[in-house]
């Protein structure tokens, strides 16, 4: 399936669109998306720090997703680096 990842915070600096489209298996879990994004980043993002992605969470519009959860049906997720609001 095709998934669209929206990037926030420090992850925005790696791609002007702040979004990445990836292809993953139809039964992919969040952990699989993390692996696919890491591979994409290492291939295409100059100066990418893998530590930042390791500390980033994946989320839908309503909740943070755990690693073992399936990808949302609409294939849309947000990638959230460590937060610093307030």
């Amino acid at each position, binding site marked *: 399936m095709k998934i669209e990842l929206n990037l*926030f915070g*420090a992850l925005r600096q790696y791609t002007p669109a702040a979004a990445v489209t990836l292809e993953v298996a139809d039964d992919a879990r969040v952990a699989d998306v993390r692996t696919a994004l890491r591979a994409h980043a290492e291939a295409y993002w100059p100066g990418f720090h893998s530590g930042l992605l*390791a500390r980033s969470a994946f989320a839908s519009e309503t*909740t943070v997703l755990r690693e073992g959860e399936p990808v949302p049906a609409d294939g849309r997720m947000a990638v959230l*680096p460590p*937060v*610093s*609001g307030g």
Partner: protein
Amino acid sequence: MDAHVDTVQFAIADIARHRLDPAAALDFVSDPGFGGIAMFVGKVRAQNLGREVVGVSYDMFDPLALAVFAQAAEEARALVGPRLKLHVSHAKGRLGVGDLAVVVAAGTPHRDEAFRACRLMIEKVKHQAPIWKQEHYLDGDSVWSEGCSLCEGHAHDHD
């Protein structure tokens, strides 16, 4: 949130169009039955970690931020009871030193509940809401703040 629609107010203020308004927050959480209102106002500081700050930019994932505020409000209600009004507003975009970044207000019958609810809400905003701060320094450099990981096992790993 449906059952408490008149008692919670959340706002994301795109600073190109809106300003945070502490007086309006106080008004919202006021009630004839409430004696205590606790409020927290966060402003942009001129220094951080020894560097001279000239401004900050806030990025936000709006729908999830509003969901986190709503969940935090439910936790506050569980903590202090149903007689509670809450306001949370957070700026989005580029701010200068002294500008308002966040306003949290809690109104309750007595002061202890107001302080506890207000503190819970600002901690959730700081540690769990999908909001990111980029600091702009006097020397022209900009850096995203380190922040708190939302991953499992990383909860509250940084303040």
